[in-house]
């Protein structure tokens, strides 16, 4: 095998593995349960996980840059809270949307600045961000606030009919647009290439003259923005704001990104992989609900096991000679 034909599949191998896994789990479901392999089940996979797709897209940026963002779940909760409280106070919908997105991005910006300026580990800073955002939710209201705004409800319940009688919500369209935007930014802009470079080796990126500071802060702004947007989608999905929404969702997002083949060390991975990762998680949940007798906690165990398999495989690949050369750099 020549070096060239070897390199191309190796780069995409983890993503391909995730896609194969998705096809396999979905195939297993189709073979076992009648009505599983319908277009609507696939559409529901997207409808039920639209917010997670957006979160995972944002998380991919952060993890690619070698960081981690634990605050995303809490920012989702904060966004649902701001949305619900704002609408309850009679704010127009566009104002609420802008406010939520600005708050999310600002939180991301602040965390990014602290991480970069003071050289504190992303883990700790975003952990503080996680506490802060959740605390702020309860500062607005300790109770769950339902959303009664008619415009908002109309958007939430509106469906788009696809050929074959399959319906999706606007959430799905937004989530897919986010994935497309993320693809464009990561692969077609200077910023995107810098994200890969900083994740691969920050020192080298700096010596190459890349704007590492802007990149490192930027990924957290993107993640904050995506979390806020995911929060909006989640409010559309739940039609309420609550400080205990999306507890532990940051772990789902990280799991989706890892299962999607992105290396936690940074520098290697694809947004499409994360999308596939979310779909795998969604399929497992659907499978377990179709099965009926298996309890929901099996979802957690299976996700844990999948994480393990993917990490072990990644580790095996990293021990290969070429990856070692890259890692050693």
């Amino acid at each position, binding site marked *: 095998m020549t070096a060239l034909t070897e390199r191309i599949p190796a780069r995409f191998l983890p993503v391909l593995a995730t896609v194969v896994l998705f096809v396999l789990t979905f195939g297993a479901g189709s073979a076992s349960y009648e009505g599983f392999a319908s277009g609507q089940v696939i559409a529901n996979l997207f409808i039920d996980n639209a917010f997670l797709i957006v979160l995972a897209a944002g998380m991919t940026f952060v993890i690619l840059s070698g960081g981690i963002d634990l605050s995303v779940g809490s920012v989702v909760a904060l966004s649902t809270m701001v949305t619900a409280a704002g609408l309850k106070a009679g704010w127009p919908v566009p104002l609420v949307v802008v406010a939520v997105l600005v708050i999310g991005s600002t939180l991301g910006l602040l965390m990014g600045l602290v991480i970069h300026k003071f050289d504190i580990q992303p883990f700790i800073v975003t952990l503080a961000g996680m506490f802060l955002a959740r605390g702020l939710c*309860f500062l607005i209201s300790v109770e769950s606030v339902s959303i009664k705004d008619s415009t908002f409800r109309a958007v939430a319940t509106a469906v788009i009919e696809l050929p074959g009688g399959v319906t999706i919500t606007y959430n799905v369209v937004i989530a897919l647009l986010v994935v497309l935007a993320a693809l464009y930014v990561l692969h077609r802009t200077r910023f995107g290439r810098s994200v890969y470079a900083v994740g691969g080796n920050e020192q080298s990126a700096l010596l190459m003259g890349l704007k590492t500071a802007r990149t490192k802060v930027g990924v957290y702004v993107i993640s904050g923005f995506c979390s806020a947007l995911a929060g909006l989608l989640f409010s559309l999905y739940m039609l309420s704001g609550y400080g205990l929404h999306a507890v532990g969702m940051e772990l789902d997002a990280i799991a989706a990104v890892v299962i999607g083949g992105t290396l936690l060390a940074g520098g290697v991975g694809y947004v499409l992989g994360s999308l596939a990762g979310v779909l795998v998680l969604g399929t497992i949940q659907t499978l377990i609900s179709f099965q009926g007798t298996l309890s929901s906690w099996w979802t957690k165990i299976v996700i844990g096991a999948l994480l393990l398999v993917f990490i072990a495989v990644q580790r095996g690949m990293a021990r290969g000679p070429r990856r070692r050369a890259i890692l050693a750099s």
Partner: protein
Amino acid sequence: MKNRLLWPLIALVALLLLNLVVTPSFFSLRIQDGHLYGGLVDVLKNGAPTLLIALGMTLVIATRGIDLSVGAVAAIAGAVTCVHIGTSGDARTAFAGMAIALVLCALLGLWNGFLVAGLGIQPIIATLVLMTAGRGIAMLVTEGQIITVNNDAFRQVGAGFVGLPISILISLAVLGLVALTTRKTALGMLIEAVGVNPEASRLAGVRSRTIIWTVYVFAAVCAGIAGLMIASNVNAADANNAGLWIEMDAILAVVIGGTSLAGGRYSLTGTLLGALIIQTLTTTVYTIGVAPEITLVFKAVVVIAVCLVQAPKARAMLSFRKVAVS
């Protein structure tokens, strides 16, 4: 070292003073039925599980690792013990249950150690596996139910008294034990050496892998004991909520105490201070009458403040400004 502990100490004293201002009786201790009661005892008692987990976490972090699975391990320990005890009120059943739970926790620690030291997986991810799956396993053990028990021997672990609450004594005993074994022998230095550079320590003859395995097992056993305390305190095993976010609290306690997440050095006194700060903060929020959920905001502020004060870059900026002013 003294200097590094100064800021956490100031934070703790400030918090305690705030409590004194709000509730003047905060520092008063009274003895009732031979048991010591009072605000400070409450802080220590409620902080005992966090302190215990933070101790294990300190050693893990000193080797440049992290253990996210401790909360899930605590939940498993509580679940296994309560399921084993069932309806029995027998002390022997309780001890057997606890022993089984702790052995299981040690095995879970071995598993984490295997992933980190054996397969060489990043600790944050390796332990994420058990963090995610662990709660599922705990649910599997309890079959999704909250298992309540009524066993006097088991109740002692979390709610019993020997003058002081037993949970405090256990945590302090473990603190003393760790301090003795790591600071009076070379073990502490070896752990720090592994944290600075595992490969270099291995070449220098330190058994890096064995040390990494050991700290993860220790952390899991600490988490197990903490899980027993939590379950015993409420006489129930709640697979979903027992020890929820305690790993975050423990990590915060360690970091506030001046142990760097980059590994290579650790301070047990710092961890003790950190755990006390976190628990005092929670108690303070209760006593000044703010909704307990808002504790999170204060926690975030304290974490950022303490981390900023300790960050070398921030210090450099501050001292630069001082020089400029003078």
